[in-house]
């Protein structure tokens, strides 16, 4: 048997970035069927789509939407960060990349929240 690591060994920025990437990917994957289903309702006409869109006025759904946009943006910028680390020459910029990724994702989430 081996000893297991706990949060103390994982408590550094890149590991948190990994967790955000994995959990956002999972959440987005779970959301996709609902998203596709909702758009598919257009097959039943514009009125049906409007009925669904009415639901998005609920505060809880607005919050959920904002979180989804934030997660999508975070998965995008986090993914670009990973592509940069894997494909570009290594230059000790891991922490700066992470800062940029987090900043850009937050900006996108904020842009959505303010546009609501």
């Amino acid at each position: 048997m081996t000893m297991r690591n706990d949060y103390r060994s994982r408590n550094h920025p890149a590991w948190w970035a990994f967790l955000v990437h994995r959990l956002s990917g999972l959440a987005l994957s779970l959301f996709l069927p609902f998203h596709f289903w909702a758009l598919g309702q257009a097959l039943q006409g514009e009125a049906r789509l409007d009925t669904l869109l009415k639901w998005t006025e609920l505060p809880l759904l607005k919050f959920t939407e904002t979180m989804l946009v934030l997660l999508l943006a975070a998965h995008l910028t986090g993914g670009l960060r990973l592509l940069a680390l894997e494909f570009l020459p290594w230059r000790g910029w891991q922490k700066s990349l992470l800062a940029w990724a987090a900043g850009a994702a937050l900006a996108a989430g904020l842009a959505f929240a303010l546009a609501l």
Partner: protein
Amino acid sequence: MSSAGQTYAAGSATAPGAKFEAWLWIAQRASAAVLALCVLVHLVTIIYAVRHGLTGAAILGRTQGNGAALAFYTLYVLAIAVHAPIGLRTLCQEWLGWRSASLNWVVAGIALALFAFGLRAGWAVFSA
């Protein structure tokens, strides 16, 4: 574990799943690169759409009979159907300990379902 180690240590064996995993990795990165562009367009569209009022008419006004939009969403859905299942597969292996061959079939099923369901959604807003 160590018994498997012995068999490798002796010579230069090809690791199990070498080609399969390499191609999955290539597919994951290639789809990621496509998705990077698609998601960027998607996010800009979302924010634009929300600013200009989210209604059925507004959405369908952009997509109805729009061949370019249909082509974009088809590519988008294809990239998603490649990208998401590969990520879920890794998650199942690492966090659920699900490593049997059945996982690959389930993941392939998820990929097909996402592709079909996504195409249906794209077609719906195009043809409505």
